[in-house]
């Protein structure tokens, strides 16, 4: 059972701001004391540079640091820690795959397939690569309810498709894409798949091995962990073939002024001093999350979403963007993110007024500008929930939204 009141008590920001209603979890989550104190403890008791260090601090830090790799592997069902690359975030992970995996294979006329609901992070790297190589970026359209047009997905796959890159849970609409099925279809055509799990790992059980996904990326700061750290999972056979794109210390076997050879493992992508404190903090975030049953999390978030949607639909002139809008009240295709617009009131004005009431939501295009263009919206207001949110907070937001409507009319 998820006990949000108890959970709130584990987050210092809520202890310091008891009346803060934080509905911007899709942008970044708050951090539990376990993570914050873990980072502090690292700096106060263990700080040292890893690898090649022999004294106690360095040796124990190196160990702490490498243990997180195994922890991450277990967390997403990776076969082993050699398939786990430390990055600085989702964005960096996708860029690495684009530059280092796909760039060398992609020919003029080849195609990369993404969906219309991709975050800029899973769009622009592919677009730029296509531009450089004379390849073509194809986009799977979505239905008005915010779901992928599945028949078109199949139709768009071709012998020229060299990569499929998909978001698992849309950060703008909350749509949950049927990735298992979509990966299988791509594999039937022999096409590798990257899944952007930025919005899904915190709440959904991920098993990269069962999914047989080629690449899976996410960010620490969206799963209760620190900023500046993320993960790229890649099948070992792919990682082995990929060349590093950043060069420096801690990634080399041998260097002379003439020639350099690189390490074999994921370390070859981790040149220089990494975000050691951040990676150790990510380990604590995973420990934190591992206390919960993902099924319970999903049940609770579905409850919150249904509760919010039902109340929001009672507000005249408020329109939810995505699946729920179609009168389709099942939330199986929708995560804990609700994007909405209100007649005649700009999303920024809504967010500002909610902000004054200490309700943190986000307004804008949510880094999915083409999706907004497709929906013919300048932007939306987005409320995104996680385990520390409550129906009571939703009530407060509903009241505030009603107030805004009065205010503007």
């Amino acid at each position: 059972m998820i006990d949000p009141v108890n959970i709130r008590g584990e987050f210092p920001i809520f202890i310091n701001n008891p009346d803060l209603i934080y509905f911007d979890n899709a942008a970044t989550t708050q951090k539990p004391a376990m993570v914050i104190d873990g980072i502090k403890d690292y700096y106060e008791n263990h700080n040292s540079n890893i690898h090649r260090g022999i004294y106690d601090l360095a040796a124990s830090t190196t160990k702490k640091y490498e243990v997180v790799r195994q922890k991450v592997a277990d967390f997403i069902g990776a076969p082993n820690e050699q398939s786990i690359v430390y990055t600085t975030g989702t964005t960096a992970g996708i860029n690495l795959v684009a530059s280092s995996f796909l760039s060398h294979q992609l020919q003029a006329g080849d195609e990369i397939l993404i969906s219309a609901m991709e975050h800029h992070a899973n769009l622009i790297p592919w677009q730029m690569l296509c531009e450089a190589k004379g390849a073509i970026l194809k986009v799977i359209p979505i239905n008005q309810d915010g779901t992928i047009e599945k028949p078109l997905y199949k139709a768009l796959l071709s012998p020229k498709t060299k990569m499929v890159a998909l978001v698992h849970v849309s950060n703008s609409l909350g749509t949950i894409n049927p990735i298992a099925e979509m990966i299988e279809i791509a594999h039937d055509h022999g096409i590798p798949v990257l899944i952007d799990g930025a919005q899904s790992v915190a709440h959904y059980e991920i098993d990269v091995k069962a999914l047989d996904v080629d690449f899976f990326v996410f960010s620490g700061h969206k799963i209760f962990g620190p900023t500046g750290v993320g993960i790229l999972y890649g099948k070992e056979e792919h990682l082995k073939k990929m060349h590093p794109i950043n060069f420096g210390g801690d990634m080399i076997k041998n260097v002379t002024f003439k020639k350099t050879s690189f390490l074999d493992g994921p370390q070859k992508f981790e040149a220089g001093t990494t975000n050691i404190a951040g990676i150790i903090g990510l380990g604590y975030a995973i420990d934190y999350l591992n206390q919960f049953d993902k099924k319970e999390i999903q049940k609770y978030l579905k409850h919150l979403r249904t509760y919010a949607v039902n109340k929001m639909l009672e507000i005249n002139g408020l329109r939810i963007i995505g699946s729920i809008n179609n009168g389709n009240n099942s939330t199986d295709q929708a995560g804990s993110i609700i994007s909405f617009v209100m007649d005649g009131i700009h999303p920024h004005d809504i967010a500002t007024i909610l902000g004054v009431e200490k309700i943190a939501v986000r307004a804008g295009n949510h880094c999915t500008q083409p999706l907004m263009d497709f929906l013919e919206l300048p932007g939306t207001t987005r409320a995104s929930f996680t385990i520390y949110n409550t129906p009571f907070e939703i009530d407060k937001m509903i009241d505030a939204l009603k107030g805004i409507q009065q205010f503007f009319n």
Partner: protein
Amino acid sequence: MCKIQKDKFLSEEQVVNKMNEELKKLYKTVILKNNNEPFAFEKREEAEVVLEAYNQICGDRFRLFFEIENDKIVNLSFHGFGCAISKASTSILVKHLEGKSLIETKDILKSFLNVINPEGIKEENIEEDFQAFEAAKDFPGRSKCATLSWDALKEYLEEK
């Protein structure tokens, strides 16, 4: 917090009221009115000058249409979309600059921008329309909304 300290602060109710005050200050009737009934809100693609004011961070985008005749700004209108604050501030711009000379315009621009500038010194005899935007100072995320079209026009005139 101990009792004595607490008394120095506002009660929770007072805080909420103050919040609402801030809000009302921000969205004062001037802004709401100009948002709902903007001044000279019309496209004029054939205008001599078509100036775009675009906020890349939030996507607000307005265009100002005008001519400069005898060193005066004339036939000023605007179009586009954005939040209440950016729309109202553009509407106010149009209302106050129509027919003004370039020298007058410079002063008016300065006077308006000074109201929103957190480091600006409070002047006397400020247009009531302008004062309505003063509260934008307290909303760091929003001051750009208030100055969007004004900054664009200022830049245009300086580069001219």
